[in-house]
């Protein structure tokens, strides 16, 4: 049981990946395929973000007492001042996956936009967005 509870985030990621993959391949309506693609991409993003989480009171990756520009202007003094309360990696969440996932979200939206433009051209050309009706017209 502990084996399941310790990693429950990853089981949900795998379930979402399977849902997305099934929808992308098996669904007949093109917009439904696209919804499956969105779910598939968000599941990958959820996987990355859950690698970044840290338990044990880790706060969001923004240094609180970095009091604005006026303090950081005289950098030399600043370094000495900062040595007083140095930043420890343990009490901040890992920022790297967040950066990667900002990229992945924007890529997901762009692919959705392009795929929707394609669907609208398909609708204009074939008059339907159902895969089987289109394949009939082609034959």
């Amino acid at each position, binding site marked *: 049981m502990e084996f399941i509870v310790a*990693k429950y985030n990853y089981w949900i990621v795998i379930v979402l990946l399977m849902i997305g993959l099934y929808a992308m391949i098996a669904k007949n309506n093109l917009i439904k395929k696209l919804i499956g693609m969105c779910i598939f991409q968000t599941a990958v993003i959820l996987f990355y973000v859950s690698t970044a989480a840290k338990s044990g009171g880790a706060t969001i990756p923004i240094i609180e007492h970095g009091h604005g*520009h006026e303090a950081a202007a005289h950098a030399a003094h600043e370094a000495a001042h900062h040595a007083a309360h140095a930043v420890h990696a343990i009490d901040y969440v890992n920022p*790297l996956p967040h950066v990667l996932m900002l990229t992945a979200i924007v890529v997901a939206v762009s692919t959705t*936009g392009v795929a929707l433009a394609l669907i609208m051209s398909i609708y204009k050309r074939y008059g339907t967005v159902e895969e089987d009706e289109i394949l009939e017209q082609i034959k």
Partner: protein
Amino acid sequence: MKILGLLVAVLTGCMLLYCAGDFPDWADPNSPASLHVSPHYIEKTMEETAVPNMVTAVLADYRGFDTMFETGVIFTAGVTVIILLRRFRRKDEADVQGDSDSRKGPPDDIIIQTICRFMAPFMQLFALYVLCFGHHSPGGGFQGGVIFGASFILLGVAYDLKTILRRIGARVSALLANTGLLVYSGIGALCILLGANFLDYSILSLILPATGDIMARSHGILGVEIGVFLGVSASMISIYLDLSSHGQLDEGL
């Protein structure tokens, strides 16, 4: 087709389950991912770039090259929607009427329109706040750009496409997207002209008045975020313009 989809999904699922047991426990502080590279980011960001928000620092400075191409991706989506849907010649056949019965759309509701008209300026102000305070609070170029674009899309949905076209035409949004990207890669190229590597902002201290190397990085990040802001907001608007009117830019939803 359904069985094939089910088979592929279950097969990949089993492959992932087979290895999921070997993942480090979720959210344990000493998993390899949070011990190798990220401690450097957490401890050194404040000293090296004077930006409290680590994510913005890593996004625009340590891995700034990724973000340039990512803005390139959203720009490509904008150009793709233009090349696919935009109707250049007027003699194209009439637009194919979507068969959804709500073709005429709901009657213009006065309440929605007035509320949207009040909200739009505050959304744009908030977008600029999110852009400028990306250093200290969550947010930055992307989020600000999308909110800025969304304020115009809100007007387009509440009224009709003409309101957006009066404020930002198709040509202006395309040129804005280009200038945003040119700002971003221009700053990178400027660093080469000044003699450092691509996207190395510390060299900007030569031209920025009274800024040390560290503060030059912070200003470099802000400049790059402005480029991202323009690029993303203009691309979002141009994608919406074409998607909702199928390229004719007449009446939207």
